[in-house]
């Protein structure tokens, strides 16, 4: 293979290497046979438990052995353990799988085992003879911390973000949504380009608006301020523009729409492509939602569309320009305008 170093080895050294490999293979096959036959006999011993660990270290994809391990816990070990011991065993399982995940971050069955462990932590310890939720909460809190470490290593790791959403949704005592908002602020503050963090923020806000914990209008105003900081810092940043468009939504709020259009006009000189594209879209929303009969507005919109069509710099933006322009409804763009745009583009693009 081209990226494997070729070492010159003597025939004896090669033979020895092959023998070592063969021993390893034989050992693995013997171990596998042993584990699977004990599983078939439904053996739930500590020995069997130990063997599954050895096998899973070599082959973490073996879902059947993960399953066997869980059955050993449920049928063999747990019935002989106190709740405290069970909690300790499950914490060990979580540590073991953390190590496994470092080497195999995408193996579904490891994540699956972690979820099972979390979901089976017993109630306890007892406080005033009543079982508390402390063990559960401690394990789930730790799990959230695991996701934070993963996101520190790679802030765009979408599997880690997905898992974080799972942890937050299933914790015994749910964290307030506001704390997740704060987490996304930290991540966005660290890097405005981190779209995964903006995305998480949008999901969190949607829940806060729905539940009435935050007033959607005031909150959106706060968000517009946040995203405008990002836009002024880097007017070319894709994340900020998408988030901005999400905030605008279908443009029902006239005040916000007009204010944001003004803001973008100010940015126009810095970033003609993205600004023009958003301006055309937002002007159209203003026209459609609030003043469909305004001839002045219609004229402004058509002028902007023409200016947009003249922005043929880097082709990706050209394509976006064509998408933006041609997504106009026929009633707002007349044939003359269409033809003008098509001629400038030099290609024909049908918007049917």
């Amino acid at each position, binding site marked *: 293979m081209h990226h494997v170093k070729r070492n010159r080895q003597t025939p004896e050294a090669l033979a020895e290497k092959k023998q070592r490999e063969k021993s390893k293979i034989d050992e693995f096959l013997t171990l596998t046979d042993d584990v699977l036959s004990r599983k078939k006999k439904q053996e739930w011993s500590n020995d069997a438990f130990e063997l599954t660990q050895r096998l899973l270290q070599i082959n973490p994809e073996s879902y059947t052995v993960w399953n066997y391990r869980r059955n050993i816990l449920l049928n063999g070990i747990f019935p002989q353990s106190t709740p405290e011991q069970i909690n300790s065993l499950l914490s060990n399982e979580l540590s073991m799988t953390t190590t496994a995940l470092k080497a195999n971050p995408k193996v579904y069955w490891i994540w699956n085992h972690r979820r099972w462990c979390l979901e089976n932590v017993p109630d306890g310890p007892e406080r005033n003879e009543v079982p508390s939720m402390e063990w559960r909460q401690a394990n789930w809190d730790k799990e959230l911390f695991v996701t934070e470490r993963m996101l520190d290593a790679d802030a765009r790791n*979408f599997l880690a973000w*997905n898992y974080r959403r799972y942890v937050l949704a299933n914790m015994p005592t749910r964290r307030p949504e506001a704390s997740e908002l704060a987490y996304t602020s930290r991540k966005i503050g660290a890097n405005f380009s981190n779209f995964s963090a903006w995305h998480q923020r949008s999901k969190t806000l949607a829940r806060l608006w729905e539940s009435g914990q935050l007033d959607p209008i005031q909150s959106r105003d706060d968000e517009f301020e946040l995203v405008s900081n990002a836009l002024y810092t880097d007017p070319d940043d894709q994340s900020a523009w998408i988030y901005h468009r999400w905030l605008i939504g279908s443009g029902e709020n006239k005040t916000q729409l007009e204010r944001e259009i003004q803001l973008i006009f100010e940015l126009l000189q810095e970033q003609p492509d993205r600004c023009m594209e958003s301006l055309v879209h937002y002007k159209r929303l203003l026209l459609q939602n609030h003043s469909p009969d305004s001839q002045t507005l219609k004229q402004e919109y058509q002028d902007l569309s023409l200016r947009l069509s003249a922005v043929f710099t880097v082709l990706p933006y050209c394509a976006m320009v064509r998408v933006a322009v041609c997504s106009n409804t026929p009633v707002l763009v007349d044939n003359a305008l269409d033809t003008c745009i098509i001629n400038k583009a030099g290609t024909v693009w049908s918007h049917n």
Partner: protein
Amino acid sequence: MLPTSLPLLSKGGHATHCKRCLSGLPSSQVDIDPAKLALSFYCLGSLDVSGELEKKTRDWEREQWREWIWSQQTREPVLKSKCVGELSQSPGGHYGTGFRASSYMTTKHSTEEYSGHDNPQIIMTYTALLSLSILRDDFSRLDRKGLLKFLRSCQNIDGSFSSEPLGGDSDLRTTFCAFAISTMLDDWSGMDVANALQFICSCRSYEGGYGQSPFGEALGGTTYCALAALQLATKQLDPLSLQDRQKTIRWLVQNQASNGGFSGRTNKDADACYCFWCGASLHVLNAGDLIDKAAMTSFIASCQFKYGGIAKIPGEHPGTPFSNPLTLQQTLS
């Protein structure tokens, strides 16, 4: 700006790279063993799409590969009764018939029936069928009825499909495989189509693309899976309104970077494989002419490795050819 001439596509080099991977991989690639069948498909696919399959491979090799793929077709165990009225325990479960990745889970000579720890897998089944098509098999050995049962046993309550009947990843990738398999069988009785379509729609993000699962950010790969699945099932992408389509087109188009390559997500760098995932998605939406083809081709060309294979970005090693045939397809189309 259009380049005046593009670098040559090193078809021969890529074909040799794929042929090498089909012959064997170094021990550093051992964690790919659970996806062996998929890897085989990517190699065969690359050879096929570039017209090099018959040139670079022999009849007996193709025959050997066909036999190996068929040996991964596994059925549910037949219930054996010791005497009338008594049924023996069947550890394998009853999930129909499908293809497993390879024999990596079994220590003995592989059998036709699975035994609970070497179940068929949906992605491997999808790639098996495609590989056999490339190898011009007549499919007389395919257990179609069993395959439909397998699909049914993989579908979840939310409409998605799991990679295996016992669980595993369940998202748009595995769901797309179910749609593709049903299309190839020309039989949709293996799934609750309406429920599956509803799951696909639930993965759509406000960006216009589709995440791997609900609430996720849009990804190029899963956007392709969603759109392709919708087209396979509905022909006209019915669940999508005009506005939806435009939004998706907009997201896909803005993923083409200034270097010509496509990125897979908002604000990520370009990667050769997304030239396919995003490019093909645009074709599905009849918006392929919005791609700056010259720039994209130039980017892919610059990802070619001198000893064969296409890396994800210029200057890197290609590794295994998981995305080779897809990027080749984009270049050749």
